[in-house]
């Protein structure tokens, strides 16, 4: 029998991510994994379980809770924590508002999305975490295309796109001064399609929001938003029941749904393959200006 020593692209991506996760555990004293309950962080956590098997994942998860989450996301998160026995830390945006650290936006497009940055940085400081792993992917958005696996942040948590360390081969430089920390993106090289294929291949559980379901929604600037108490509707905005699903999961206030009858992973993959809109096309937070993501990243956003 002729041996073929080759990996499929999913196997190679998995191997790369596992390598990065192990580097984090080896190079940092107190790492933490950011967990949003979305598919990317679910896959990242799944990879972490693989990386340290048969030991437990050697770092806690940190969820920045805006208070505007979908109920399904929180229920899913709690069930996963219960099942895997990992330690969960919750940073609360509501607390940051109550403490007067941030001021809630007003008006129809008010969102707590931008406020998360303060809560995130506070949570990192409080836990004295020196590395925070995130599920960011380079294919998501153009400002992310240049992000490193190991992304250095100064002591204000800021990202300087002009002064990033070069990243060569698989040699990750996690050295830092006191007070500085790193953001690490283990699934940098995955695309939306890779994530879905992997979820199907590995039979990874995901929140029901990703599958098409009946929901009360309304349209704003071409984006379908879920009706909830967290959004102020304009008088002309009509709520109706539609069959939708979500391609990304964020805050209820700014995560757009798509009209879809994809209720299985196979159908979702078919839909992603034929889609002509990127997944962040439904995120109103990115539409604010052409360089919206770049600006938020500089301030310390995920």
């Amino acid at each position: 029998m002729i041996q073929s020593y080759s990996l499929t692209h999913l196997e190679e991506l998995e191997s790369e991510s596992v390598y990065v996760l192990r580097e984090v555990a080896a190079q940092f004293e107190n790492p933490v994994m950011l967990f949003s309950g979305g598919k990317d962080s679910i896959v990242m956590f799944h990879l972490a379980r693989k990386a340290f098997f048969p030991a437990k994942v050697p770092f806690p998860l940190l969820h920045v809770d805006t208070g505007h989450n979908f109920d399904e996301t929180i229920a899913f998160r709690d069930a996963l924590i219960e099942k895997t026995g990992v330690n969960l830390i919750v940073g609360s945006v509501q607390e940051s508002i109550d403490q007067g650290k941030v001021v809630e936006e007003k008006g129809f497009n008010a969102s707590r999305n931008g406020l998360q940055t303060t809560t995130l940085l506070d949570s990192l400081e409080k836990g004295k975490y020196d590395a925070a792993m995130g599920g960011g992917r380079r294919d998501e958005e153009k400002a992310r295309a240049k992000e490193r696996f190991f992304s250095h942040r100064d002591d204000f948590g800021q990202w300087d796109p002009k002064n990033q360390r070069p990243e060569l081969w698989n040699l990750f430089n996690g050295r830092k001064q006191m007070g500085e920390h790193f953001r690490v993106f283990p699934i940098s090289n995955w695309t939306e399609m890779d994530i879905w294929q992997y979820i199907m291949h590995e039979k990874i559980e995901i929140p029901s929001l990703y599958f098409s379901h009946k929901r009360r929604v309304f349209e704003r600037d071409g984006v379908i938003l879920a009706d909830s108490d967290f959004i102020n509707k304009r008088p002309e905005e009509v709520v109706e029941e539609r069959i939708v699903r979500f391609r990304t999961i964020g805050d209820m206030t700014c995560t757009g749904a798509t009209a879809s009858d994809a209720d299985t992973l196979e159908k979702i993959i078919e839909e992603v393959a034929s889609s002509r809109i990127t997944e962040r096309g439904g995120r109103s937070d990115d539409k604010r200006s052409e360089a919206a993501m770049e600006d938020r990243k500089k301030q310390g956003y995920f």
Partner: protein
Amino acid sequence: MSQTDSYTDMDLLRFTTAGSVDDGKSTLIGRLLYDSKSIFQDQMEAIERASSKMGGDESINLALLTDGLRAEREQGITIDVAYRYFATPKRKFIIADTPGHIQYTRNMVTGASTANLAIILVDARNGLVEQTARHAFIASLLRIPHLVFCINKMDLVDYSEERYEEIRAELEAFCSKLEVNDVRFIPISALKGDNVVHKSKNMDWYEGGTLMYTLETIHISGDQNHVDCRFPVQYVVRPHTDEYHDYRGYAGRVAGGVFKKGDEVMLLPSGFTSKIKSITTFDGELEQAFAPMSVTLCLEDDLDLSRGDMIVRANNQPKAEQEVEVMVCWMSEKPLTPNGKYALKHTTRDARCIVKDIKYKVDINTLHRMEDDKEIKMNDIARISLRTTVPLFFDRYGRNRTTGSLILIDEATNETVGAGMII
């Protein structure tokens, strides 16, 4: 279901693109994404908006697809390595898009360090220019296994076969001075789409495949070293649970060779030998592991092994020395300090080193060795000798890109300042 099945069968090709500022590199990438239908409608609309804002030509500016950061859009140039993704039914691709200016050699080196293939763009009107030579040299220095010269803007030389052959001969002569094994040439027009994804109707005389065909079919599984067994220990897994009470696993990514259950192995630096008891993964035990798989090895004997150590075969050992000769690409604005001390990372091993000697600097345009100029500044490439505080377990970079590469770090700023390839 056919779509989902075929997708899990694909492999992964990483390539870099290099070209001079006006060689049409961004246009080429835009063309690959556009013609392979990898561009989404909202991205397309964003580009159309930006194209008209910049008052550019009426046709859609494909180059805008690949320009990310605002600073770049303002300056109209790419300033850093950007990664792009696309897939065809045959393969998934990762593009490391690197800029072409001289002051950004360091970015080109960065992008090239993980690539299986390099596309080098040559303007058909200008032929081989200094930058082409530089890009080809860097690709060969970084041992990118496959090199594809795209002779671009063929539409501006009337799709002339004669002109193409002239440039090809020039490039072949130059490449004979380099260490590259697989070199290919394709006449294209990125702007008009000739021979990028679709075969050109304007160049009947060209009998080779299109660029996309080449990218989809080039054989890459032989690019990894499957001969010399090298397993740098990355992390020690100790569960401390009842079920895995005495479990002690060595986690890492295979850097070369094939490790099989039952294999006799040697541990470095101790020199002790043992046998592979099991290859553990979350999905069950494996019979064998090869590069670049991430696995966990368990050994028959209870030996002291930690991060930075290496598992090899007794009859095929890497060099274990404290004196290394490297070709270094300098990445920092602060020049290399002769006799300076730096932190060093090699595989999973950390060390410190002193620069013992600067042998020569390479003029990357002419490949001449400059033995009297020893000031190593940003973007310079030089041969230096290092002495390390602990032995490194290494192979020649030409033999193994993982065990043959290292980085130098400024101990005061923690910046990565040098990329080294062991000779």
